[in-house]
C-alpha cells in the first residue's frame, strides 16, 4: 500500500511532536551552559553532580522500592480481578465490581490521591513508605486489570477446552494452558504498573510521609524553581532506563507471540 503524502506528513509531524521535547531535554543535559538557548559545549558534569546529590539518590531509591512492591501487588490483584470478570458471567455485585475496577482508569489523580489520604487518616495509619505503596497499588490495579482483561477477551476458548478434553481438570487446564498464554499480558500489565508508580507525583504527594519522598516529588520541587541542567540529567537517566526496560521486556515477550 503506497502511502499518500498527507499520511507521511501526518506521521512525521505527529512523531516529531512527540519526541521533540524529550530530545531537547536529553540534548541539553549535556550542555555545559546552564541556559537553554546557549550551547556551551558538551559536558557530563551534571551527571557527576547527580550521584553526589544525596536527597535525589535517596528519593530515587524510595521510588524504586515503592514501584517494585506496588507493581507486584497490583499485578496479582489486577490479574485476579480480570479473571473474575471474564470467567464468571454472573455473580452478586458484578456490575459494581466492574465499575469499581475500571473507573479509576479515567479518574483524575487528584481525586484518587485525596480520597486515599483521607482513608489513611481515618484508619489512623502513619504516612510513609507503605501508604504510598498501597496507594499506588490501588490505582495501578485497574491498569493491570484492563490489559489482562483485553487479552482474555481475545483468547480462543478452544485451547482450554482442548486441555480439558485431553484429561486436565479445569484447574490444571487453566494453570498449564491458559496462564502461560496470558503471561505476556500479565507481564505488560506489571511493567505498566511499575512505570506508573515510578512516575506518579500527585498521589504520592498526598499519601507520603516523612522519610518517604519519591523521585518525582523531589524533582517537582526543583522544577517549580525553573529549568536546571541537573533536572535535565536526572530526566535523561530516567528516560533511558525506562526505555531500556521496555525494550528488554518487549524483546523477551516477543518469543511468545501467539494467536
Amino acid at each position, binding site marked *: 500500500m503506497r502511502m499518500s503524502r498527507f499520511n507521511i506528513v501526518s506521521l512525521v509531524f505527529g512523531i516529531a511532536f512527540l519526541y521533540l521535547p524529550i530530545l531537547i531535554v536529553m540534548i541539553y543535559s549535556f550542555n555545559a551552559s546552564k541556559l*537553554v538557548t546557549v550551547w556551551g559545549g558538551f559536558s557530563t558534569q551534571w551527571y557527576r553532580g547527580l550521584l553526589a546529590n544525596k536527597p535525589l539518590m535517596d528519593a530515587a531509591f524510595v521510588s524504586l522500592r515503592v514501584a517494585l512492591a506496588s507493581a507486584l501487588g497490583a499485578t496479582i490483584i489486577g490479574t485476579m480481578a480480570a479473571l473474575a470478570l471474564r470467567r464468571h458471567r454472573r455473580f452478586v455485585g458484578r456490575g459494581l*465490581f466492574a465499575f469499581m475496577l475500571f473507573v479509576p482508569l*479515567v479518574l*483524575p489523580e487528584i481525586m484518587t490521591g485525596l480520597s486515599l489520604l483521607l482513608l489513611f487518616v481515618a484508619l489512623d495509619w502513619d504516612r510513609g513508605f507503605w501508604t504510598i505503596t498501597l496507594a499506588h497499588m490501588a490505582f495501578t490495579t485497574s491498569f493491570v486489570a484492563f490489559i489482562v482483561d483485553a487479552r482474555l477477551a481475545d483468547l480462543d476458548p478452544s485451547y482450554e477446552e482442548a486441555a480439558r478434553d485431553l484429561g486436565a481438570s479445569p484447574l490444571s487446564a487453566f494453570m498449564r494452558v491458559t496462564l502461560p498464554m496470558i503471561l505476556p499480558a500479565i507481564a505488560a500489565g506489571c511493567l505498566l504498573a511499575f512505570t506508573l508508580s515510578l512516575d506518579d507525583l500527585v498521589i504520592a504527594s*498526598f499519601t507520603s510521609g516523612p522519610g518517604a519522598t519519591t523521585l518525582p516529588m523531589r524533582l517537582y520541587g526543583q522544577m517549580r524553581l525553573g529549568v536546571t541542567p541537573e533536572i535535565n540529567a536526572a530526566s535523561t537517566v*530516567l528516560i533511558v532506563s525506562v526505555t531500556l526496560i521496555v525494550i528488554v521486556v518487549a524483546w523477551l515477550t516477543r518469543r511468545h507471540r501467539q494467536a
Partner: protein
Amino acid sequence: MKIRPVILIPFLWLALFFLVPLTIVVRLAFSESAQARPPYRPAFAWAEGWPVWLEKAKSLSLGNFEAMLEETLYIDALLSSAGLAATGTALVLLIAYPLAYAIARAPRDRRVLLLTLVVVPFWTSFLIRIYAWIALLKPEGLINYALKSFGLIDAPLPLFGNHLAIVIGIAYSYLPFMVLPLYATLEKLDWSLEEAARDLGATRLRAFWRVTFPQTLRGLIVGILLVFVPALGEFIIPDLLGGSDTLMIGKVMWSEFFGNRDWPMAAALAMLLLCLLAIPLVILRMLEDRRETA
C-alpha cells in the same frame, strides 16, 4: 453460590480502596474546617450508627457548598477547567486522527513499529515531558529563540504561563490515549468501502468524511472520554505550564488542601468534580454495554 477467592479478594480490595475512600470524601464534604489534626470537625462519627446519621443528615453543614456557589473562584475554576479540557481534547484530536489514520494505512509490517514509537514516550515520565515544554515555551525558551533567529518575530510570543501552554500540555500528554482507540477502530475498517465511494464519484476528502469517518465514531468517543475526563482534573500541567491567572479545578483543590489546609473544602470540590465526571462516565458505560450486546 460458591464463594470464589478469585472474586472475593479483588472485590474486598476494591471495596476498601475505592468505595470506602469515596464515602469518606462525602462525609468530609459536609464537615467543617477546624484547627485540629486532622483539620476538620467531622459531620458525624462512624460509631454513632444509622439513626444518628439520618438525624444529622437533616441539618448537614452545607457551608462548603454554599461557599462554593458564593465565591466565583470555584465556579470560574470549574468552567475554566471544562473549557481548557475541551480545547485540549480538540487539539489532541486534530493531531491524533491524521496520525492514527496514517499508521492504519501504513504497510502491515510497519504498523507495530509505528505504534510502539507513539507509545514509548508515554512510558517516560509524565512530569519530565511537561517539564520539557517549559524549556520550549518560555519567553527565553527554544521556540521563541528559533523564531527570533530566523527573523520571524521581534518580541517573544506569549507561549508560556497561559491557557495556550496548558492546551499544548494537555494535547501532548494525552496523545496516546486518543491515538490508540482511534487506531483500533481504523485498523478493523474495510477500506474497500472508501474505494467504492470514490468509484461512485466522491473525491478523496468526501469519501473519507462520508464513509470512513462515521465508522470511526466509536473509537472517537472512547478517545474523547479518555482524554477529557482526566484532563478536567489535571494538576501538574496547569501548575508547571500555567500562570497565576490560569484556573483549573485540580490546582484549586490542591491549594485548598495543602495551602489553606481546608480539607472539607477540598472534599466538597472533589464531590462537585465527581458529579461532573459522572456524566461522561455514564455515557461511556452505556456505550460499553451497547458494544457488548451488539
